């Protein structure tokens, strides 16, 4: 059977890897190419590179980062952040990325998902969803936020994930805004609701801090892959440790 994937995520700001808490309070965590190589060496199954630069100069630096990472590593990586059009997707893929994640632009114009999927294939098209728990007269639901988790959209994350699948996304990268950077565990309820309704792979993101968090996301949340940033950047666990733990718990991973 297919192995569960461990995906370190590099948030890149003007050419440097940074990490925050709930998308804020950014701290520097290193050089993207050096970190990418280190993670591949340590057994990463895939990487995610998200451009969080807000300026044009930052975006141009990022293309260079993609090229350098692509020539250095021999595993797949997804690139996201600021993807506005199929042209942007083309530029990312032509520079060596394997998949493109769309987020805000897809919320504003869902047809961008089908455009990318038709042109490059569903397997290249990742829908990134940032969602936050909301309480509505005793009922819990998950609202989609856009613009790096700053703007509520009114969209229900479960429905949006299903819609994304129908439009041609080949994978969902699902981030809990509440849990992001807190290292207190993934939002299992969010994961469970979405992984049980879509028939494409779901990547869990936001909240990994302990070995059992990875296991919970996979076993209870139904995640096909688990993404984490700070737990790896700050050396709390190595990828190898996470994998050995998962194997001991009966989860298939690639060693």
């Amino acid at each position, binding site marked *: 059977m297919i192995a569960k*994937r461990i995906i370190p995520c590099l948030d890149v700001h003007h050419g440097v890897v940074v990490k925050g808490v709930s998308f804020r309070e950014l701290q520097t965590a290193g050089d993207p190419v050096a970190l990418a190589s280190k993670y591949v060496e340590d057994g990463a199954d895939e990487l995610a590179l998200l451009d969080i630069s807000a300026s044009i100069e930052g975006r141009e630096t990022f293309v260079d980062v993609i090229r350098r990472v692509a020539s250095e590593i021999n595993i797949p990586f997804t690139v996201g952040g600021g993807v506005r059009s199929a042209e942007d997707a083309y530029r990312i893929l032509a520079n060596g990325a394997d998949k493109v994640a769309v987020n805000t632009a897809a919320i504003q114009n869902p047809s961008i998902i089908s455009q990318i999927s038709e042109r490059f294939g569903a397997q290249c098209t990742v829908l990134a969803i940032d969602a936050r728990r909301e309480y509505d007269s005793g009922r819990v639901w998950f609202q989609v936020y856009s613009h790096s988790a700053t703007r509520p959209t009114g969209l229900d994350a479960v429905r949006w994930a299903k819609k994304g699948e129908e439009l041609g996304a080949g994978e969902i990268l699902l981030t809990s805004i509440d849990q992001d950077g807190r290292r207190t565990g993934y939002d299992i309820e969010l994961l469970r609701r979405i992984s049980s309704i879509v028939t*494409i792979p779901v990547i869990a993101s936001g909240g990994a801090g302990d070995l059992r968090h990875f296991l919970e996301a996979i076993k209870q949340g139904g995640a096909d892959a688990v993404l984490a940033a700070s737990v790896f950047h700050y050396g709390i666990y190595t990828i190898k440790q996470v994998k050995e733990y998962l194997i001991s718990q009966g989860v298939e991973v690639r060693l």
Partner: protein
Amino acid sequence: MKVGILNLGLSNLFSITSAVKKLGAEVILLEQPTTEIDALVFPGVGNFMEGARRTQGIMGELLDYISSGAPYLGVCLGMQLLFESSEEGPGDGLGFFRGEVRRLRAAKVPHMGWNKITPVRPSPLIEDVQPGEYAYFMHSYAPRPVEERIVIAITSYGEDFPSIVGGGAVFGTQFHPEKSGRTGEKILKNYLQAAKR
């Protein structure tokens, strides 16, 4: 050694080019096969119909090339196009191997991630590859060969499908060797070695 990489706009050529160069070969990007190369790689992702459309104009040249016994490695869509047709859409593949490409019957499609390749037949392509080594897949369709003897390795995802096929100097991998870590490197290296002979 000169390796031609077929550039039909069907794939990101960056990674496959870097991977082949790292193995010490010279890379030439081609619009169609030539006699100046020692081996050909045809990478491709995406839709079969689009692949068939773009291959149409060089169908004769490609068939001449592979029929001459020259080394060919098709990756993903480049493997699927060796077959006759696909459920994914209309259009003719090369028909070098008999059989159709069909949608995977699994609970979650695309088949995305690392899965085991199990050799079922010896081949120079999988020399030093142990049963159960992992390779990286990202696809929704896989070929169903008519002839069992062309299947070199299988992979299981909802059902068994051929992950490596080959006949003579012609090979195809459903996974991406350029993205499959050390296992992928070995397979690419084996292909180049076999092409030298």
